[in-house]
């Protein structure tokens, strides 16, 4: 029986708001953890709170209601570890979320006192403006930050994030390409570029970006699947043949992925429309193969009827 879901809006460094579903059990566990942090004795509280903040940060959970009540403990900590400063940063984001300028300023001043002027401080200030939807001010902060710290990749990424928020995808692609001319091995940025090009329906550029991802991370089967889907989207006969080969490769790497069999089914069906494919013995065989595996994967599922319907068409 499906559990009830609560949606959480997640703020990620990838400049996209993605919705991640936390089920009720996880929510309750989070709140129980928060209550534990609030109630235990001062000596154990610090470690628990830092651990709690690390969890929130790792899972990109935006919960100012759980973070702000625990900030008073951070004021008293003298042991300055990396986790402590990450907790300070998280506290600053939480304060910005609820427009608590006092706490935000306290966090920024603390970071500035310890580390001086650095790119993280600029990012913090820029994110504060972004949260308030003041993109112009945020862009100005990032520009100033890049002038002082030109080899800070995070600031370039925030500029791309602003452009995406303003739906200026073309400009975002341009900025990202300029960034990738220097930081060529940044996998995250190449994957962001793929999604931007796909949004803009620029499939050839997207294919180039995905093949760059394949070169940087050849063990990640998902990139091969993505390339197959992009070639399928391009639509011409040669691209469909290439897409089919990549799907077969992914089938070899990942036998239990329904998506690859579904893609293979669609590609083989599209190839059937070409007269040349009548001489291709592989097409029919691969169509049967994909159908068989899809049915097998959904054998015990409620959606088997939909799969059989799909295969029958």
């Amino acid at each position, binding site marked *: 029986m499906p559990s009830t879901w609560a949606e959480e809006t997640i703020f990620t460094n990838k400049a996209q708001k993605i919705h991640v579903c936390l089920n009720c059990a996880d929510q309750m566990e989070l709140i129980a953890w928060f209550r534990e942090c609030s109630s235990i004795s001062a000596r154990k509280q610090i470690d628990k709170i830092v651990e709690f903040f690390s969890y929130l940060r790792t899972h990109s959970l935006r919960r100012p209601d759980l973070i702000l009540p625990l900030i008073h403990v951070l004021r008293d900590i003298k042991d*300055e*570890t*990396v986790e402590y*400063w990450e907790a300070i940063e998280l506290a600053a984001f939480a304060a910005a979320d609820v427009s608590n300028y006092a706490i935000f300023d306290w966090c920024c001043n603390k*970071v500035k006192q*310890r*580390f001086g002027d*650095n*790119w*993280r401080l600029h990012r913090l200030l820029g994110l504060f403006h972004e949260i308030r939807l003041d993109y112009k001010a945020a862009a100005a902060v990032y520009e100033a930050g890049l002038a002082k*710290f*030109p*080899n*800070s*990749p*995070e600031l370039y990424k925030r500029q791309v994030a602003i452009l995406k928020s303003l739906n200026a995808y073309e400009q975002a692609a341009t900025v990202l390409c300029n960034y990738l*001319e*220097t*930081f*060529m*091995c*940044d996998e995250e940025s190449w994957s962001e570029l793929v999604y931007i090009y796909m949004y803009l329906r620029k499939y050839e550029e997207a*294919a*180039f970006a995905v*093949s760059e991802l*394949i*070169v*940087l991370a*050849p063990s990640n089967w998902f990139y*091969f699947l993505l390339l197959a889907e992009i070639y399928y989207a391009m639509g011409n006969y040669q691209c469909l043949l*290439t897409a*089919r*080969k*990549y799907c*077969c*490769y992914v*089938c*070899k790497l990942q036998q239990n992925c329904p998506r690859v069999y579904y893609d293979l089914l669609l590609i083989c069906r599209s190839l059937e429309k070409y007269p040349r494919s009548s001489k291709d013995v*592989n097409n029919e*065989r*691969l169509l049967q*193969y994909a159908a068989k595996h899809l049915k097998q994967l959904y054998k015990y599922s409620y959606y088997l009827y939909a799969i059989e319907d799909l295969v029958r068409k």
Partner: protein
Amino acid sequence: MWWCYGTLQEEPWRIVPSSELLIWVVLSITIMALVTVSLQIPIKTPSTRPSLASIRKDAILRRSIATRNNASLLPKDQFLCRKHLFVDESQGLLVQQDKEDSDVTPMKSLSSLVKPHFIRSKVLENIANIGPQMVVGAWIRSMFHGYIVCRLPFWVPETFRSMLQSGMEMIGQHLDTRYVSGLSWYIVSIFGLQGLVLDKKEVNMDRGSEWQVGSSSEIQTKMLLKQEIQWWKTIEYHWKLENIEQQQQQQQ
């Protein structure tokens, strides 16, 4: 002598160090080693962040190596596109970098190594790291000359004798290699504590910049660039997925 007594019933030359050694010698030497290692505070030279040009050069090399190694996974058009990107005569990334490097004269690259601030920081770093170790080492050698501080519980080959019995050369080959002298204990403690004390996480808010350029020398980078250009010119393309459908049929 109060620091040893023989137990002739077990084996000749068996030395059982006294428990007072643990307090007066072993602990003292360990504390001195800890103090010496703690003194190796890194000298706060202004952290020189790598320039964009050096980051780009490094990234071009890494990208070229990765592309060449995984070229068999790309379709032919993508492979040819990348080959053109890297080794095109006029616009190739590797070719352009090579031309820029050859514009720099050897004297210019050598002079970058002898800049005053670079030499100063290196000298100060060496003094701070090695100076205290040498001073304390000399003191331990004079104070604990001839002391055997412990016996290792495992067998040690003969080749390690000079390492474990520094200052005990007069005994020669008669002493079991498992016995450790005071000076050797100090040296081994230094290396061990360096790993424990100095490698702890330092708070560094620059952690986000993970593509810091490695410490490869300029000469090494030039050699790698030339090597990469040669590799690209001689590479033979073969698509790994050419016969993937037939291979799959055979597997079935």
